[in-house]
């Protein structure tokens, strides 16, 4: 297998179809995402299919170099990109990123998505490490799960949920980004298109048993993302947990700081055995929105009022 090489993004100002590239937003092993503007100067996010093990764009070039040897695999990998486009095109949900256009250029393919102003949950965690409130976690994830339910209803899996793929709009409403949904189809498609995992967020079955993927796989990642909100740390990667489980349960680590019910729910999602996790998003959502969360951080006023109630009760 060839070593991964760094691909160069398209240059700022580059005219791509009816859009103008502004700058690179992110780069993954599979694609590059740009901020661009359309003809009405509306900002959009454009994702370019460019798997770095198969195609290389060097500085100053526009067309990527795809060797004869990789040509067939490169084209085959487009299928996943199409799957992602197809998946998103059929989804119309406020908590799922919206796809606006899809086109072919520069010997590869592009997907245009709505650009959201705000920041990723990862950025939020970095900024507010250790001081994220329980109500924030419950609110963001209960709404995000609405979007995920829609995804699962369409028989799709996200498979790469993590705080960096959860976008918080300025109004605080979360949006699920970056659909690796179809990547599972790649499992048997050859050595150069290995599915990608994010350590800490990927469920054990993503490494060990790709035939056992299901809604529970996304639920593990949701649990890990909530865990990351608690103290800014990622749970021990599942692959290492299978060897030697050093996972510090949320219940132990954050007792007293968050309600036991939330912490237990997070640990429940992070069970290594998928049969033990919440089996559907709906089940999880129900727990997150239960009224129980009124039992939040006990303050001295709560303690006092409890004691008073106790006295009155007598």
């Amino acid at each position, binding site marked *: *297998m060839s070593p991964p090489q760094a691909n160069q993004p398209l240059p700022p100002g580059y005219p791509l179809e009816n859009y103008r590239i502004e700058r690179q937003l992110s780069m993954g092993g599979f694609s590059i995402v740009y901020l661009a503007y359309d003809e009405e100067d509306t900002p959009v996010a454009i994702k370019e299919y460019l798997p770095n093990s198969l195609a290389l764009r060097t500085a100053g070039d526009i067309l990527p170099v795809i060797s004869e040897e990789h040509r*067939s*695999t490169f*084209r*085959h990998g*487009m*299928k996943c990109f*199409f799957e992602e*486009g*197809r998946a998103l*095109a*059929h*989804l*119309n949900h406020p908590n799922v990123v919206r*796809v*606006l*256009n*899809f*086109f*072919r250029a520069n010997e590869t*393919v592009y997907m245009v998505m709505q650009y959201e102003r705000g920041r990723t949950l990862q950025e939020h965690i970095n900024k507010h490490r250790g001081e994220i409130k329980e109500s924030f976690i419950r609110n963001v994830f209960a709404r995000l799960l609405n979007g995920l339910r829609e995804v699962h209803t369409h028989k799709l899996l996200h498979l790469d949920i993590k705080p960096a793929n959860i976008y918080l709009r300025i109004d605080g409403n979360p949006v699920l980004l970056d659909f690796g949904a179809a990547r599972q189809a790649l499992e*048997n*498609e*050859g*050595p150069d298109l*290995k599915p990608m995992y994010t350590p800490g967020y990927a469920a054990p079955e993503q*490494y*060990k*048993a790709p*035939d*056992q993927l299901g809604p529970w796989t996304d639920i593990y990642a949701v649990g890990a993302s909530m865990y990351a909100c608690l103290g800014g740390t990622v749970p021990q990667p599942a*692959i290492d947990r299978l*060897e030697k489980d050093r996972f510090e349960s949320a219940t132990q680590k954050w007792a007293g700081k968050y309600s036991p019910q939330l912490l237990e729910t997070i640990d429940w999602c992070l069970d290594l055995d998928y049969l033990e996790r919440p089996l559907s998003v709906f089940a999880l959502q129900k727990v997150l929105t239960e009224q129980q969360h009124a039992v939040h951080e006990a303050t001295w006023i709560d303690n006092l009022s409890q004691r008073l109630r106790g006295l009155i009760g007598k």
Partner: protein
Amino acid sequence: MKFTIYQESRVGKRRNNQDRLAHCYSREALLMVVADGMGGHLHGEVAAQIAVQYLTEAFQREAKPRLADPFMFLAGGLQNAHQAVQDYALAKRLPEPESPRTTCVACIVQDSIAYWAHAGDSRLYALRDGRVLAKTRDHSTVQAMVDDGQLTAAEALHHPLRNRIYSCLGGLQNPQFDFSRKTTLARGDMIALMSDGVWGPLDDLRITTALHGRDVMQAVPGLLDEAERMGGPNCDNLSLVAMSWGENYGEDTLQSVETQSLPMDAHSTQMPEFDRRPTPLPELTDEDIENAIDEIRNAIRKNSQ
């Protein structure tokens, strides 16, 4: 020794064939082996190849023309094959999750007695008069659940964990090998070794029916056809070697073996070559790409109205 033998391996609907199989015989002993490789990239394939090659080479070294002790041969051969797979992973510096692993089932016949051993969920069936005389117990989570009474055999057939095994060659854990009893073969008995791609979609009755009373040359492709059909669009790799003891269907059968004709120290081995090249991907044409894009654009248009 007189027997007829036939083997075949198919890729199914997968991109690579990670199964390996071989048989090899001297004047007085016969070895049959099936291995089903696991692990990312091509490593599973390599693991299966190492296991099968290691056992056949050991057989050729030691069966001159008899094995001193068939069970000792199997125990030593499988343990060493396990280490050979581990050595490969070490040499390639493969991290544990990617480490090559393989199931393995191997059988020796000598003095009309069959001896076998296995790790994982590749199976051996010993058949007599169209019934199962003996069969290996899979080292799988599901089989353990069936044994505990937590599952019925019918439920096990579609259980999501049916592919999870707890013993194999390669990897950090030491494999568990199960050894058979000494099984004396009668004329007409059949021994069949197969990967889970063959038995997975079928039950025992279908397997025995397909193999019973037929020449192995027809029975093997017939059973593979059936498994492939039942396996559907995700059909796994399929490998099957079947041997019919003391039988001879017609004088001209190519697969009929009379080992007395072999010189004392000679061996005959059948092992497919290691095919390095994966089967080519179906080409995605410009038209396919345009069609896919049109379809997506239509869906976007529809959904935004």
